[in-house]
Structures are given as structure tokens and as C-alpha cells.
């Protein structure tokens, strides 16, 4: 990246760290064996996977046999929820999930709803938190599983796993959390947290893409999604992606060793950006402030302008972000997270997520704010729909209303 580039899309993916790449390299061209092979190449590869599993387990205070490597957090989410549903005891056909989930969880739940499970979609408050009392009220005798995203990928809300897990534990309900964003940034200790299943990945913490992991608490029955060989303790067939697994373990190790220092730094970036962005007129912050917000997330709504257009302008200026705008998606639907916290569609359209890593700088924050000010000004200047000129338009479908000039 050149020094003009400002990459603030670290919740989408992060730049790999040099030590992670170095750790992976031998497993491409030297120790390239299949961990299932019985010869020395196989044993070397198997050792690498075993050591990586022990590292990840150690970081979670779990047992190595409770860790299953996968291809992504999406796969881990699918494995956890479908897998538990597959093994559901008789009479347990109710699932609970929050409305602020990633599609890798929401769409699994929607599919299970079509296949005979009953699913309760839990509301969240304006900051995106699930209220443990709401969870308690939603639990029924036939409830099998509750799933919630730990660190929210859009608005950064960090759920209280202890409180939510406690409710589940008291009721004999399994508890899954999608920690795709939070693993490596928030301490997760399965000895203390009443969580049964945790989905993780590597590429949000400077590791490689194409690898993830699922923690499955000992004793929890999870059916496997695919058939094949006995890899991953019979839980996930297919030859392990050895270099990526090694990279994931290295990235996790570095992240957790430096967690406090890196989080403090990212919080400084985050809070400076939030403070300065909110100086732009007609803006508001989405998600909570303070310690229950992911250290690397800021999500701001810029009223009267459209997020995709903001994103494109920022991109032309070398600032890379993401948007909750409908026009950023093929389906033309705004982010489910932003609408779940009560934003009107128009507010969701004008929202931008700025997400940081430890590789960003305060200078980048200041420059991004300057760029954003200019872009907001430019786009608002072409809008007929800022409040002073605002004209309500209503319609259904792709439609319109028209007025003669003298009525406008």
C-alpha cells in the first residue's frame, strides 16, 4: 500500500502480518505433505496442525480436542447450527437468534425454519444489545439453541456472553456465538464463559483467508455437514489447509499476546474518528460508546446522502470503507443490523463503517475525516432533499409522483 492509501475496512479483511506469512511459508513448498499420510511429510504436516490446534485451544482455555478447523467463520457457523439441529433430541425444535446477526447465521436459521424448526428472532435495543431478560422470556421447554454474534460486524456492539450464556445454562439451552470479529480482540475464556460453540476465523486478525475454527464444548453433539474422511476427529472431512491453519494459530497468538496494547491503540483511533466525524453536521453514531464497543469499529450515519456514493468517492480519494447502503448490495436491501436497531431505511443508506487495525495511524484518521467532510459537502450540494429543500415523496414499487414546477 502506498502512503496515501487509508484502509479502514479491517472488519472485512486485514493485511497479513509478516510473521504470520513467515510461519506459513514452509508449508507451501517444503513441508507440503498431507497430515493424513503416514510418512515423514505427513507427520510434519500433522505436527503443524496439532500444534496449531493446541495454540488456539490454549488461547481459549479449551482442550485441543474441542477445536475443529474449518474453511471460514461462515462454515463454522453453518457447522455449529446445522450440526446441533441435526443432532436435536426429540422435542427440541425451537431456536433463538438475534436480529443483528451475520447472514452466515441468519440464513441458516431461516433455512431451518423452512425445514420444520421454529425460530424466534430476538429484538435488540438501539445500541444493538440483546437483553438477557428478553432471551429468558423467549426460551421455551423445547428450545434447543440460542445464537448471537459476539462483536457485531456492522456497529461494533459486544454482547454480554456471560449474562446471555448464564440464561442459556440455567435453562439447558445450548449457546453458540459468532466470534468472527471478536476473536483476538476480546478475551474469550471458555472456563469462565458459559458458551458451548464459538465460531472464529483468521483473516480479521491479520491471518490468512480460507480458514476458520469452531470450538465445540466437550459433550455437545454436533453432526457433521459433509461426508468423507476422518479428519478433524471425524468432524470435518477433507484434507486440512495446513499453511492457513498454521497462519491462523500464529495470527491468534500475536493478537492475544498484544491484545491490551493493540486494543488501547485502536480505541484511540476509533474515538478520535468518531469525535471528528460527528462534528460534520447531520451525522450520528450507530452502536454503543465505550468498552462494550469493538475497539476497531466506528459506524456513522451521514444524513441526506447515500452510502454507496460516499464509499465510491472515498475510494477515489484512496480511503477504503464499507457501507450499509442498499445500493452496495445486489438485493438493494439496507443492512439488517442497521434496520434492527431502529434506523429508518434512509438513515441506513447513509451509513459508513470505518474499521481499524493496529496498522492504521492517527494521521490517517485525520486525513480520512478531511476527505469525508469534502465528500459529504459535495454530495449534499447535489441533493434536493436536504431539510431546507425537502419534499416528501411517497410511492410503492418503482414509482414516482410528479408536480408541476410551480408546485415545487
Amino acid at each position: 500500500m502506498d502512503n496515501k492509501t487509508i484502509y479502514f475496512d479491517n472488519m472485512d479483511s486485514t493485511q497479513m502480518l509478516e510473521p504470520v506469512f513467515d510461519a506459513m511459508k514452509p508449508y507451501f513448498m517444503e513441508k507440503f505433505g498431507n497430515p493424513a499420510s503416514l510418512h515423514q511429510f505427513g507427520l510434519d504436516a500433522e505436527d503443524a496442525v496439532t500444534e496449531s490446534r493446541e495454540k488456539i485451544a490454549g488461547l481459549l482455555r479449551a482442550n485441543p480436542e474441542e477445536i475443529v478447523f474449518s474453511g471460514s467463520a461462515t462454515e463454522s457457523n453453518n457447522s455449529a447450527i446445522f450440526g446441533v439441529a441435526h443432532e436435536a433430541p426429540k422435542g427440541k425444535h425451537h431456536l433463538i437468534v438475534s436480529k443483528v446477526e451475520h447472514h452466515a447465521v441468519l440464513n441458516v436459521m431461516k433455512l431451518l425454519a423452512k425445514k420444520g424448526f421454529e425460530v424466534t428472532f430476538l429484538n435488540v435495543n438501539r445500541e444493538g444489545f440483546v437483553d438477557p431478560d428478553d432471551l429468558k422470556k423467549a426460551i421455551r421447554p423445547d428450545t434447543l439453541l440460542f445464537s448471537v454474534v459476539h462483536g457485531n460486524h456492522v456497529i461494533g456492539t459486544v454482547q454480554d456472553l456471560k449474562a446471555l450464556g448464564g440464561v442459556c445454562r440455567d435453562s439447558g439451552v445450548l449457546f453458540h456465538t459468532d466470534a468472527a470479529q471478536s476473536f483476538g480482540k476480546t478475551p474469550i475464556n471458555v472456563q469462565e464463559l458459559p458458551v458451548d460453540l464459538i465460531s472464529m476465523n483468521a483473516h480479521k486478525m491479520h491471518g490468512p483467508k480460507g480458514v476458520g475454527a469452531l470450538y465445540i464444548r466437550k459433550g455437545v453433539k454436533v453432526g457433521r455437514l459433509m461426508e468423507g474422511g476422518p479428519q478433524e476427529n471425524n468432524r470435518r472431512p477433507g484434507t486440512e489447509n495446513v499453511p492457513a491453519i498454521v497462519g491462523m494459530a500464529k495470527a491468534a497468538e500475536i493478537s492475544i499476546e498484544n491484545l491490551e496494547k493493540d486494543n488501547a491503540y485502536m480505541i484511540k483511533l476509533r474515538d478520535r474518528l468518531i469525535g471528528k466525524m460527528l462534528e460534520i453536521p447531520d451525522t450520528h453514531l450507530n452502536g454503543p460508546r465505550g468498552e462494550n464497543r469493538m475497539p476497531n469499529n466506528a459506524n456513522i450515519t451521514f444524513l441526506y446522502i447515500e452510502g454507496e456514493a460516499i464509499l465510491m468517492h472515498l475510494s477515489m480519494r484512496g480511503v477504503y470503507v464499507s457501507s450499509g447502503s442498499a445500493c452496495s448490495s445486489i438485493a438493494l436491501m439496507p443492512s439488517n443490523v442497521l434496520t434492527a436497531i431502529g434506523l429508518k431505511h434512509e438513515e441506513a443508506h447513509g451509513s459508513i463503517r470505518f474499521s481499524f487495525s493496529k496498522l492504521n495511524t492517527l494521521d490517517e484518521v485525520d486525513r480520512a475525516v478531511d476527505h469525508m467532510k469534502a465528500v459529504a459537502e459535495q454530495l449534499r450540494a447535489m441533493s434536493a432533499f436536504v431539510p431546507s429543500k425537502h419534499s416528501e415523496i411517497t410511492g410503492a414499487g418503482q414509482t414516482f409522483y410528479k408536480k408541476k414546477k410551480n408546485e415545487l
Partner: protein
Amino acid sequence: MRYSAEYMKHFSSPQNIGEMEDADSTADVLHTGGGCLDKIRIFVKRNGDKVSKINYQCRACSGTIAACSAMSEMVVGMSLTDAGQFQGNQIAEFLGGVPDKKQHSVDLAAEALRNAIDNLTETS
């Protein structure tokens, strides 16, 4: 599909933006298909039976901004009859193609024009 150079040119430096004091007709359109809420206000000036000038304002994504800008250049000099039948695909072609997710943009811009022309016909 990548955005064409023409698309990026019209998005980054949109032409003919702003109100038109002496417009002969105007129309507002809102896209509510799916969750998209792109809005356009279009202003049309005629000279006899031809379009002489188009201006617009919008709260919209890059595709709709580019589509409005391209259209504001394309239809100057066009007969009112042709402008009244103007279609989004004509803008898409002018822009060197648009990704599927931006089809709504070219369709909305064309709809704005057709409605302003319709309004013009009704009031003339």
C-alpha cells in the same frame, strides 16, 4: 463487472447538476424497489418540439448520479416524442454498460425524464 471509464467520469464529475429556474417541466422520482430509496428531481427545458436542457438534483448512489449526468447530455436536442419514450438501457449503453446492481439507476433516471416529458405534454 468493473465500472466503465465513462461511468466513473460521470459519477466523479457529474454534469448539469442543480435547480433550473426557468424549467418548463419537472418531476420527482423515488425508487422503492427492494430497499433502495434513490431520489431524483429532474428539470426539463424545451425549445419547440425538442429538449434543450436537462438539470437534476439527487440523493442517490453512484449509478444514479452517473445515469442522470449521462442522460442530461444524451437527450439535449432529442425530440420530445423520443425523450418521452427514453429507456434506461439507452443510458447503460452510453455508459459502456453497467453492472446488474446498477440497472435500477439507469431505469430510474429514464423514468424521471419520461415523467417530466409527460408532465410537459400535459401542461403544454
